[in-house]
């Protein structure tokens, strides 16, 4: 996370878990960053990121996806995997941030 901090990049994870479940995850896993709780599925439906009936008891959940937005809210990079085992790793995201010159452009 220090590499994201150094670049001035905010990181947020999103799932359909409740705040209680997400806070439990933060504590158990030792995560310090923001976790957002789309427990009414509104965000994943609006952004078309629903993986239907793949959660417990057939609940809809989020399909894995990663987005990089610039400071104006414009989407600069998207990774929509077609394999839930293959997701963007931190070093890949950092590489894309540097390739997009996000920190430099916004800092100037």
């Amino acid at each position, binding site marked *: 996370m220090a590499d994201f901090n150094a670049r001035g*990049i905010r990181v947020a994870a999103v799932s*359909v878990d409740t705040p209680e479940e997400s*806070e439990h995850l933060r504590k158990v896993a030792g995560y310090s960053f923001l976790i957002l709780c789309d427990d009414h599925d509104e965000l994943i439906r609006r952004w078309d990121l629903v993986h239907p009936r793949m*959660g417990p008891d057939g609940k809809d959940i989020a399909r894995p996806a990663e*987005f990089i*937005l610039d400071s104006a809210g414009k*989407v600069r990079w*998207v990774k929509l995997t077609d*394999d839930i085992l293959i997701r963007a790793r931190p070093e890949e995201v950092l590489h894309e941030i540097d390739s997009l010159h996000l920190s430099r452009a916004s*800092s100037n």
Partner: protein
Amino acid sequence: MKRSWNPAVWVGFALVLIGALSYQYFFIRFPVTRDFPWANLLIFAIALALLALGLYRAFHRPDAYRGKIIGSILAALSVFITGFFLFVVFIFARQVPPSAGAPKVGAVAPDFTVADSLGHPVELSELLNSPFRTNDWPSDGPGASKANGLVLIFYRGYW
């Protein structure tokens, strides 16, 4: 003559278990072994070859090797575990919806409001515009300026 305990059967089964578990807990960390699980397939191949050798010895040289019954059980379990691994990695994991309507590069991301893990509402515009110092949430003090960008990671959930 004392019969051998037929180590090929047991080592083969142990390797099957290692092959099944090592992907999720080790090989998935490295793109070279994650994107195509060749390391796991190699482990499974060696494991099944050892099991076949062990079964051959058990049935063709029962005077020297044990393992007719336990070897058959472990071999059946190994085939099942290997098949399950192949199903998960090559079929189940790849059934991801296309998400054609997801925000595309160049588009402005649609705003949203969802709760953080403490139940407080958070807007996308707040994430983009509020002062940023580090990613420690929510205890970090205010920064001097807003963030240079935002990484949003959608994940399947912690059940």
